[in-house]
């Protein structure tokens, strides 16, 4: 069981539903330590003052905001506490909106809300009401001393609280060069539409895997086991002798000839196109010694 981030309540109107806030996203990133290449010693971070050259401990460190080059406003822990929102541990619903109204760009990170025993009935009621109305709640919530806006959505049997970006966090696309006024021709649209239709299938997120992570892990496991790292050359079927290799090549030639058609000429490549044609001929070329042999 994942541990609760906090225990609190969903509030709307006069209704209070006691809930626990639970994580919904697992981070799978591999963690690496920095080591000294020569002796594999762990690298320590040293905080050193640029003025007196001394190492500085954490309790001697304050935060400065550079409001002008070289000019800092200093804030200490008390200052940060003063502007911290009250750690309310509640999901305060301020309005309900149609889910479709929210630009998906605004969604950031989902959390589960799990009801406490005495909140189960109200929890189910809110979930079903949201589902039937097709609406989501917009709520304020404090997580780790920061206040967020969030959308409260029904998701299966659960209520999901999805943290959202503030409007001023979304970068405006106006500075991009976008073809706003361009109207594609009707037949182009038809072709594009057809392409989309033929590639349309049910979305199955399990089809997609983080192969980067998997390959890194495989590499790490192999190294840990003292094996050679699987690079494509090593992983490829071993060609123990040149005869095997010749067979492989012969087969690949035949296959590519089949896909090219009977004359054996590559149709997909135009060897003499482009700038290759414009090579300067500063002297007459000798006739090729060998004529191209017919395939």
């Amino acid at each position, binding site marked *: 069981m994942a541990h609760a981030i906090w225990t609190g309540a969903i509030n709307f109107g006069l209704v209070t539903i006691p809930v626990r806030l639970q994580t919904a996203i697992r981070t799978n990133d591999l963690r690496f330590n920095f080591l000294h290449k020569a002796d594999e010693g762990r690298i320590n971070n040293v905080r050193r003052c640029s003025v007196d050259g001394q190492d500085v401990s954490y309790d001697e460190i304050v935060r400065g905001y550079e409001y002008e080059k070289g000019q800092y406003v200093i804030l200490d822990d008390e200052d940060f506490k003063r502007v911290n929102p009250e750690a309310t541990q509640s999901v305060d619903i301020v309005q309900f909106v149609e889910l479709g109204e929210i630009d998906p760009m605004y969604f950031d990170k989902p959390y589960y809300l799990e009801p406490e025993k005495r909140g189960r009935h109200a929890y189910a009621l809110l979930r079903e009401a949201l589902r039937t109305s097709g609406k989501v709640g917009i709520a304020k919530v404090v997580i780790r001393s920061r206040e967020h806006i969030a959308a409260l959505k029904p998701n299966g049997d659960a209520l999901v609280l999805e943290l959202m970006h503030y409007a001023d966090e979304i970068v405006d696309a106006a500075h991009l060069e976008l073809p706003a006024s361009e109207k594609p021709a009707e037949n182009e649209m038809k072709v594009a539409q057809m392409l989309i239709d033929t590639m349309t299938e049910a979305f199955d997120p399990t089809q997609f895997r983080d192969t980067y992570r998997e390959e890194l892990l495989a590499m790490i496991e192999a190294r840990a086991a003292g094996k050679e790292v699987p690079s494509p050359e090593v992983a490829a079927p071993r060609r123990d002798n040149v*005869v095997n290799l010749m067979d492989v090549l012969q087969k690949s030639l035949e296959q590519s000839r089949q896909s090219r058609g009977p004359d054996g000429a590559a149709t997909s*490549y135009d060897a003499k*196109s482009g700038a290759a044609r414009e090579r300067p001929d500063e002297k007459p070329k000798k006739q090729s010694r060998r004529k191209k042999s017919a395939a």
Partner: protein
Amino acid sequence: MSRAAAQTVDVDGRTLTLSNRDKVLWPQDGYTKADLVAYYRTVAPYMLPHLAARPLTLQRYPDGIGGQSFFEKNAPRFLPAWVPTVTVTSEFGRHETVRFASAAPRTVRFILCNDEATLVYVANLAAIVLHVWTSRDGSLDVPDFLFFDLDPHDGCTLATLGKVALALRDALTEIGLRALVKSSGGSGLHVIVPLAPEYDYDFCKGFAELVARALHARLPDRTTLQRMPARRPLGTVYLDYVQVGRGKTMVAPYSVRARDGAPVSMPLEWSEVEAMARKRAAGTEGEFGRFSVKNVPPLLRKRGDLWSEAGQDGQRLEPALALARTAFAAASNAAER
């Protein structure tokens, strides 16, 4: 001083501003950026056919060969509009050896060095070393040459390197393929086999591996296929056949290298390699250091571009593969570990 060092030049009707001309790029030799630009202008007629239409990677040394350098694939944002480019989607991001399928596709806009003005432009960026793809715009998925990088490991003599290169040439001749050779500009040799641009990278890589394995079977003591430098036997030549692939590059013929003496990657006569195989030099670098920005231009005027046929004679691999069945049969039976 540095103000006076800026200068505008007219190249084929394009006006270019050369900045910081007096910047010394080779401190030991005193060669400046102006020398680099002058060199590339002189060799342009010979070099451009080998650069044309190939995505170009610049190796830039803004602070000279002793300073920080960086590889630049993406054309600079301030690139003049007249410089031709090709935009390529790279599926594998920066990772070349481990392919992360999830790495997001990104596009890279490569410069195509098709004319002298572009060559001057990139030289002015202190791009000392020019690396090119083995394929050309219009057929980027099919290389027009096979590329073998013969890299002498510690203790390898000039004679050994020469003998291995000749054995590679002979193996290729046996299967009907003609090869061209150049110095890498460092310590090794580059051997290419001009191809009809019809075979994809996978096939070419497999074919290069076939040749390399057959050669290793013939010369097991003088060659190695070991990719980890630390595991290569002393005195061997590493047969690097894996530099064949989409996005992989070769140092262009006549490219300068960022080493003392400003050596140049120089196309060679096979007879020069035969002479190498008879020499007694312990190392290989002295041999190739004699081709430099100073003496390559007069040499080129005398002997012309030895690689002028590259790209003209597109050789086919079907007959070569058929011939390999008998030519390399002995190799297949030899002890392969």
